[in-house]
């Protein structure tokens, strides 16, 4: 690298501006690709933005901390976006109230299934206890899941990764799975997506149908609450 270019890189690599811009640009590219494929499940914009950015960090030898100094401005908006889920909830409140009982039952059963099945499969495949703790809360939104893991003495950074991988998996699987089952009830489809795959499932649900997105948002919020209660109990019971 010639000197002026190197000097420019030294400057850019120190400001949050560079990785904030790159994050937005790469996401726009991934989202454009997703739109161009007619929102094909495999063209999930989170999946493709994440691996491209991880590759760019590896190529430029940039650490995650430096990256996050810029990307934190995007990350911060997760909180306000969660609050904003009240808006579709309010607009569709009549539809929501009518299915309060199915929602409560689906939440309890779905949430327990998500926790127990992940622990069981991973345990059978030889994953050690320390990693199992980080795995248990993987179906809820990142901030809450990391808090749960931390309170149990696990690795919150690993939880964040597993949470995002779960969300991407759910975002890819939900549409083909529900279509194969012939389920045309957007409320049920969205609610399941929110329980199994938190905000990424919710984002996917909003891409497919506004009612699905609304119910996914409710499920994500309620599951965050329930999982925060269930995971410590399950861990104490199964992995003392």
């Amino acid at each position, binding site marked *: 690298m010639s000197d002026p270019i190197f000097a420019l890189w030294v400057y850019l690599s120190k400001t949050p501006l560079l990785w904030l811009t790159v*994050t937005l640009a*790469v996401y726009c590219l991934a989202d454009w690709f997703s739109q161009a494929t007619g929102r094909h499940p495999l063209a*999930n914009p989170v999946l493709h933005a*994440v691996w491209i*950015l*991880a590759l760019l*960090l590896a190529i430029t030898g940039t650490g*995650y901390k430096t990256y996050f100094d810029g*990307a934190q401005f995007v990350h911060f908006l*997760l*909180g*306000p976006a969660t*609050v*904003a889920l*009240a*808006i*579709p909830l*309010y607009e569709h409140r009549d*539809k929501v109230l009518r*299915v309060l*009982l*199915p929602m409560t039952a*689906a*939440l309890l*059963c*779905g949430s327990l*299934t*998500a926790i127990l*099945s*992940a622990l069981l*499969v991973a345990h059978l*495949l030889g994953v050690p206890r320390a*990693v199992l703790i980080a795995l248990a809360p993987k*179906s809820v939104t990142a901030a809450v899941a990391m*808090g749960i893991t931390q309170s149990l003495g696990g*690795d919150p*950074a*690993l939880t964040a*990764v597993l*949470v*995002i*991988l*779960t969300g991407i*998996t759910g975002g890819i*699987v939900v549409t083909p799975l529900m279509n194969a089952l*012939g389920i*045309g*009830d957007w*409320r*049920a489809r969205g*609610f*399941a997506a929110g*329980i*199994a*795959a938190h*905000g990424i499932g919710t984002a996917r649900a*909003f891409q497919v149908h506004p009612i699905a*997105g609304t119910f996914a948002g409710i499920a994500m*919020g309620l599951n965050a609450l329930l999982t*925060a209660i269930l995971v410590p109990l399950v861990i104490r019971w199964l992995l003392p």
Partner: protein
Amino acid sequence: MLPAVAVILFCQLAGEAVVRAAGLPLPGPVLGMALLFLLLVARDQLAARGARRLGGNAIENVGRVLLANLSLLFVPAGVGVVQRLDVLARYGLPLIVALVVSTVAALLVAVGVFRLLARRFSERMEPEAGGEGL
């Protein structure tokens, strides 16, 4: 637009403050969601009694922008995968299998229970809600 942004941030702030002060096992933004819901109810109740609808549709418009780009907001946390490549190299396959099995299982159980109970208890008077070809 700015008052709407301030209202949304205020809801989150209030949620975080209450959760921390009371030690609740609940994310602050989720409580903030409940608070914003109540504010929207209050706004339209006031408007129904003849007052001007505060802020018009400003909160809806800001919320729509945020929710339309919800996927983007998960990208920074997702890139955190670079920090744990060692764990993934060691337990990657078992973890991926566990994630896929558990995600599919949770989807199936949740949608199954929801449909079963919705058909039994909630849908006798609303035939428009279903749409499935079963």
